[in-house]
């Protein structure tokens, strides 16, 4: 029997992988991927908790909404990365430190 706990565990694993990618990867694209993973972990949770809202399917609806938003965000994110690349000739975040004090 696959219980809610299983979903949550899988979701947590995906989130952790995404978090790791965001924090550790030396490639901005990979960070973007990590972000996507984290969003998807959240979506998975929406779907999983959707079983408590059987009347309106709020979980599923919100998951779909989030997927659409995530797609849009990825598009914007990639555009930024492209511009960053044009400007800095690199997409390694370690080399981009204009924000330093």
């Amino acid at each position, binding site marked *: 029997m696959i219980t809610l706990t299983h979903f949550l565990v899988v979701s947590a694993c995906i989130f952790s992988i995404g978090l790791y990618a*965001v924090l550790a990867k030396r490639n901005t694209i990979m960070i973007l991927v990590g972000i996507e993973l984290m969003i998807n972990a959240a979506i998975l949770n929406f779907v999983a908790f959707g079983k408590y809202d059987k009347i309106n399917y709020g979980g599923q609806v919100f998951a779909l909404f989030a997927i659409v938003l995530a797609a849009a965000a990825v598009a914007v994110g990639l555009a930024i990365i492209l511009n960053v690349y044009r400007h800095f000739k690199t997409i390694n975040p370690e080399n981009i430190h204009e924000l330093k004090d």
Partner: protein
Amino acid sequence: MNTFLHISPITASILVMLFPLLAFIIQAVLGKKSISGNIALIGIIASAVISLFGVFLPGWNSTSVLQKWEWFTIGEHTLYVGILVNNLTALMQLVVCIIALPVHIYSRAYMKGDSGIHRYWMYLSLFCFAMLGLTVSLNLLQLYIFWELVGFASYLLIGFWFTKETAVQANKKAFLINRIGDIGFLIGIALVYAHCGTLDLSTLFDQTSSTPLIDKNTPWATFAGLAFFLGAMAKSAQFPLHVWLPDAMEGPTSVSSLIHAATMVAAGVFLLCTVFPLFNETVLLVIVLIGTLTALSAALFALGQYDIKKILAFSTISQLGFMMVGVGIGAWDAAMFHLTTHAFFKCLLFLCAGAVIHEMAHLKAKAQLEFDPQDLRHIGGLRRFMPKTFGCMVIASLSLAGFPFTSGYLSKDSIVITAYEWASHLGGVYVLIPVLLIIVSILTAFYIGRLIFKVFFGSFKYRSYIKTGMTFHEAPNAMLIPMLFLAAGSLFPLFGLSLTNYHHTWIMQALDVDTVYPTLTQAHLFIPALLTGGAILGWLLGWNWYVKNKYPLSENNSFVHFANKQGYLNEFNDRIFVKGSIKLSRILYAFDRHVVDGLTNLFSWFVRQLSVVVYWFDKHVIDGLVNLFAHATYYIGHLVRHVQNGQLQAYLGFALTIVVLGILYLIIK
């Protein structure tokens, strides 16, 4: 008699003063263009003529006249300047004019060719103005002004050859010592003013008023009398303030004859005669004592001098001592008489000495020799070259020695005899005074004899030069005529027809002071005899010593040295007073620098040190607290700044950490 130009004696005496002043101003403006001395000469001739016909002849033996003009008002008192013409002032003014005139003529020849001659005439006119003004001043302050101006002119004339070191030392000394006297005079004036409220001579010593303004037996009157006498002591070179006069001989000889023999130095005696009513017994006794001491010491010093002019200078001092005694014994008429006769013969002595020095200096210049032309040891046997000078000098010397037929005989006898009468009236040790005066008279005869013998007799050291074509001749006429004129004045007829009795001279008859002591007829006989006999003995001795060259004393005799060095008085003064005051001034300056200024600097140092301490406190304590706070803030900031490393991922991680921490906080809470 008052018909001459129809002017009053007052106006005339002002004119007498003004002519030399005018001459002085003209010459001062002209500067180097006035070398002939004509202006000064015209001035003094005018003065002499007016003085004789306008002041003296109408004013003599008539009541005293005065006129005064308001000068200034100070407080409640008004001071007046004015002219006082009475017997005393008219006589004094005339004497000054009559002596100054021949000296002016003499100077034309004597000073000819000197590079600074324009200054000479200027100074001489200034002197005449001051001296003539002094004689007729009505107000004591006015008298004082002229008194110091006379000293100033004398300063200028002594230092006439200002490149000569000894001359400029001498004029400084003369002025400073006169200044001591001037202070006395000023104190006297101040005392009189403080007690009487006026300085007007006619008011102060008004004989006609029943209540005299001054009670002379009060302590302040004694003090004021002594103060006036101090003034007279300096001006009239009384012991121990006489030291300036021998040094003053550094000036031209014509100046010495006019100023330092005949007129200026007599001003002290004149002053005492003027303020005579102020003196009480004590003051008069002091005057007698100082006068006698001066006469004696100066005569002794004169014996040891080798410089012609210094001998004459000491003889002047000695004679001034006689005059002081005359004032002190109350016979100021005798003093004035001696002053007058002395003016003639002493002036003549100097002029003759000047003629000799002049020729000696010429010889020295022409033969290119190195010697002091005033030193007796170089001169001798001049009577063959300068017979007329010799004649004049002998007359003057006889007069000085008080030989019969001369004026000096009359005047000196008048003092000595009166002194004897005075002493026998008082009795006791007072007899010492006339005895000493007689001794001084004999000494006088001896030293002036020595001078004559040494200069005009014996052999002349530089005779060989004269043989080799050097001319050594009689003084020129411009010098001889004044000398002859003065020689005539040194004989008795000028002062009265009586050969022996000084009471019958016109000066004594007119001035005629009442003395309290009785006349002693026998003194009129034995004192002149004693004086003349002593003089002749002295001359015989001198003849033997100096002409026959039987000189008994060694030159290194301590007495000769003592006399030559003037009793070591100069050395004493130099060591004690001059060095002393310079030393004191140095000490005080060091005190000023190190103590007074030192205190100021110490105070400023203290303030600066205090400021250093305060600054330290401010820097380390107060500012330290501020800095501590700032540093702490900075350090915390420094710790936190590592977060801002610009790494996107680090920001994210940090945000995550905070979120996690926040969640943990929420959980734990």
